[in-house]
């Protein structure tokens, strides 16, 4: 199976690989997937409490090239967005941007889930309720 050029580029030059200090109250961490399924994504966001803007985002991913590319792309998209804007990112945005084939759609779902999980972690840490999301269709 041939990967799209964008997937290859993210795989070769991943953006924002790393770890944010999860003990900080303005850092939200989302860990999704499972080693048994061959994909684990950890996405972290750092939020400016005053403005609600995401100032930094980092990821680490165990998975195939598409999973790595999806999480790398997620960190690029999140930086500079507000939490509300971040919540509108949809898995199909990844599919389109990275030209993911049908067998790789689960990678995009995982990336969307990672964003939501990171946001919820940030909300809970700051005394807010976790947002309940509808189950994603493609799993």
């Amino acid at each position: 199976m041939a990967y799209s050029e964008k997937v290859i580029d993210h795989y070769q030059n991943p953006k924002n690989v790393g770890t944010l200090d999860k003990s900080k109250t303005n850092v939200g961490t989302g860990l999704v997937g499972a080693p048994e399924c061959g994909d684990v994504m950890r996405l972290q966001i750092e939020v400016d409490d005053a403005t609600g803007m995401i100032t930094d985002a980092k990821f680490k991913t165990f998975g195939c090239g598409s999973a790595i590319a999806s999480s790398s792309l997620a960190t690029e998209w999140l930086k500079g967005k507000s939490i509300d804007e971040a919540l509108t990112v949809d898995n199909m945005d990844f599919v389109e941007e990275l030209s993911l084939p049908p067998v790789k759609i689960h990678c995009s779902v995982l990336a969307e889930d990672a964003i939501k999980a990171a946001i919820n972690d940030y909300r809970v840490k700051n005394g807010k309720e976790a947002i309940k999301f509808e189950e994603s269709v493609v799993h």
Partner: protein
Amino acid sequence: MLKLPIYLDNNATTPMDPRVLEAMTPYFLEHFGNAASRNHPFGWEAEEAVDYAREQVAKLIGADPKEVIFTSGATEGDNLGIKGVFEMYASKGNHIITATTEHKAVLDTCKHLEKIGGEVTYLQVKADGLIDLAELEAAIKPTTILISIMYANNEIGTVQPIKEISAIARKHGVLLFSDATQAVGKIPVNVNKDGIDLMAFTAHKMYGPKGVGALYVRRKNPRVKVTAQMDGGGHERGMRSGTLNVPGIVGFGKACELCMLDMEEDTKRIQVLRDKLETELLKLEEAYINGSKEHRLPHVTNISFKHVEGEGLLMGFNKNIALSSGSACTSASLEPSYVLKALGLGDDLAHSSLRFGLGRFTTEEQIDYTIKAISETVLKLREMSPLWEMYKEGIDLSTIEWAAH
């Protein structure tokens, strides 16, 4: 100079030896006859070439030429051997014993037979990939007609104790079929010394052409018969109808002859390279060999690199190195290799595996390049792996509640 890409997937298929192609060429052009044409020189030439190839093939496995039935490949050989025995010996029983790590051509054939009245026992393997002989013997019952155990595994290279298996089969009057696709031409296989009654193998795993293989069917002690699975002109002593693939068969014969001549030297050289590759890659932390290290094909190694996903790993170098992975992230099911899982490997380790199949044309330069490329990619991906980070922090990954996907 090193030419890329490097081919290290010789368990999938081997390149053809140029000497094989040379032997085949005239049989596409001037000697194009049908081996079944009895009335003119074109047919005679073709028949003579097939007879000669049959001798070459038989010699490699220590058989009589009359015991070699040409097929289209090992999948057909597996089907004909197993289904053919099932039908031919239906009055004796309907029970077949096989193992969970067999090739799909065997497993799916057995599943088919289960649907039409067959009973199949699937033996589990031990952590090293070998079957338990006591369990095999215990599984035999009065209705058992066939034991089907592969000679060597395609994913991990584990070589089964065929002699011991055949002794058990003989003792109980049960036939032994073996899918020897990965073994013939690579290690000494002798149907008489090994006590095999039926055996499937194929040319394209031993530097011959694709689309041609053979089923060995024992003619003496005991005389074995299989029911044909294809009806037609009664070729191959009625067991496999269809016009013979003369150029393919000629190539197969030549490939067998070359394996016979070169096996000892090839094996020695390839094993040194395999051992170098393995030793160097195992210098990486958390890298493990899958399957028996002792009972193994000399050109194969299967290694798991923990906390790195196999397909992601392949992507780091698959433009330059052809390999396969036990991870099946490309399939919709996301199920990793059933062979690795049968060894008791967790899904995480199964997802992290690479299969290396070296061959006659593998060079030390290629191995050096491979060691470097894979080591670099593993290190790079581990830097990117949350599992590696947790492992390094001393977190027990099995205690984490993963979000099910």
